[in-house]
């Protein structure tokens, strides 16, 4: 019962956010100064063509009607038609969703694998030189522009050493892994410092908890306490930290996909902006925001399953 009401409550909380997100996505075309169709067609269209495009996009209707239609269609998975690509926006975006999700999961995985041991080391040597070195290393990683570090990784591992391809996505799962290694490393380089910082904090908190004192009093070795109690309890907040930072992850993915010419949502966004392909931009704004909302929802639910205490709060 508690679980059900928690899930329902969480879903109800989402409603105003989703409505706001949909409204903002809808407004992207409305707010374009001048006629978005003429801008998209670069002014070389005749009046009939423009009028036809208006009718197809529904731009000839009153704004509230347009909004209602936008919501209705979006609920049915129809995000309109790209005039420039002559294809449904949903299909264009769906085609690009796979590489982006692969990239995000892969970078999150690398970031966790790097961040966990470093955070553990940092927390267990709290205030010692290793801790400071890890913190300052994190600051340096955080300050690296992803497009710059991407270029350098390309130059070193791709062009000079020839270990990894420098662009494209490949066809099979194995090829995806090889193609996405450098892009994922690039994203992980700025995600890992954020993860390390939060994990270190939560580990330090766990380390001063009463049950750790009890474990010490029982005579357990520090190593065992770290591995069994601290690490296990610090893993739970990792989910939350990752979810909170999903926005940064996606932001980083936009630039990294562009640098490595990956066929993902981010590079699609950059291209769509270049062509002023407003239906695609609008659809992407909606999809990106919904990704953030859904990931946060899933993280909260996962957290609830791991730690039932939130149900009583």
């Amino acid at each position, binding site marked *: 019962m508690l679980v059900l009401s928690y899930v329902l409550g969480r879903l109800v909380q989402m409603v105003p956010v989703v409505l706001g997100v949909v409204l903002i996505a809808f407004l992207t075309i409305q707010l374009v100064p001048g006629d978005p169709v003429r801008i998209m067609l670069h002014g070389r269209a005749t009046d009939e063509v423009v009028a036809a495009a208006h009718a197809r996009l529904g731009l000839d209707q009153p704004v509230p009607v347009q909004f209602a239609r936008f919501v209705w269609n979006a609920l049915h998975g129809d995000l309109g038609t790209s005039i420039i690509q002559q294809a449904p926006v949903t299909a264009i975006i769906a085609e690009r969703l796979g590489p982006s999700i692969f990239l995000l999961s892969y970078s999150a995985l690398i970031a966790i694998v790097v961040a966990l041991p470093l955070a553990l080391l940092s927390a267990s040597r709290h205030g010692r030189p290793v801790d400071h070195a890890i913190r300052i290393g994190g600051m340096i990683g955080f300050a690296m*522009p992803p*497009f710059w570090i991407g270029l350098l990784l390309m130059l070193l591992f791709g062009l000079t050493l020839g270990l990894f391809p420098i662009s494209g996505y490949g066809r099979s799962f194995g090829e995806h892994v090889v193609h996405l290694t450098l892009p994922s490393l690039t994203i992980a380089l700025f995600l890992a410092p954020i993860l390390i910082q939060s994990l270190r904090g939560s580990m330090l908190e766990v380390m001063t908890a009463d049950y750790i004192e009890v474990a010490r009093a029982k005579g357990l070795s520090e190593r065992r306490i770290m591995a069994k109690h601290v690490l296990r309890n610090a893993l739970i907040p990792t989910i939350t930290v990752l979810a909170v930072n999903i926005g940064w992850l996606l932001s980083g993915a936009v630039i990294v996909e562009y640098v490595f010419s990956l066929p993902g949502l981010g590079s699609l966004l950059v291209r769509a902006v270049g062509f002023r392909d407003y239906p695609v931009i609008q659809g992407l704004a909606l999809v990106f925001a919904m990704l953030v909302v859904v990931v946060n929802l899933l993280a909260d639910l996962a957290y609830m399953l791991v730690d039932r205490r939130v149900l009583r709060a």
Partner: protein
Amino acid sequence: MVVAVSPRRHAGRVARELAVWPATLKVGTVIVATIVLAGLFAPLIAPYDPFYQDFGTVLQPPSLAHPFGTDMVGRDVFSRVLFGIRIDMQIGFFTTYVPMIYGVALGAAAGYFGGWLDAILMRLLDIAMAFPFLVLIIVILSILGPGVQNIYIAVFLVAWTMYARLARAEMLVERNKDYILAARTLGFGPGRIIFRHALPNIIHSSIIFSMADFVLNILLVSGLSFLGLGVQPPLPEWGAMIAEGRDYILQAWWISTLPGVVVVITGTGLSLIGDGLAHRLGERQHGLL
């Protein structure tokens, strides 16, 4: 509080303040001050005109004559990086501190008054945070068109949300404390209570976060310029320079690499200041790092 002090006492105070600065704050301040000064005095320090194209010396590797080498049209990369400080630090500064002013004010007011103002603000924050920051900025730029002025507009529209959230959270704790109740009992108006009494106590977290935000904004501007949506060539913006060198990365690694190194040094300096401030102000960390 502003108190007139004699120069000597003032010097003593500065020395005492410096003595309690953590090492990170000192090192960070030295790094950032050096970069800002180099930017201010760029016309005096820069060995060449950042726009001067010398086709006799294209793609020269770093040397004594050209410390950072030359680019594909023979411009001196070091001089361009120096002038780039003016562009990147200026945009980074304004995109950080302008939204901070009204973000903190709005968040503080919402936290103090509560009620419908708070409810509306919280919904707005939730919606703004649902969009990945860069995606939202790019979408706004797609409407307004590329360029620095529109980056300012886009960031000013969006970036205050983080500060509003921080200030609101702090205000919720602060507003029930005795000194606020005392100020209210004395009959002070909400404006005075929020800005004169509570603000000094709730601003720390925003100041600390602003250092990480400064780094992110420099990365944002250089990233947007890299994508061609920000500062336009031939202006010597760091991200735009990295983009220009991209096609020459194999023959001339320095065109892209060295401006990036300066970005990393600048960002690390700012992060060090943030870390030091967090210790100096005696707070738990609020920044991203």
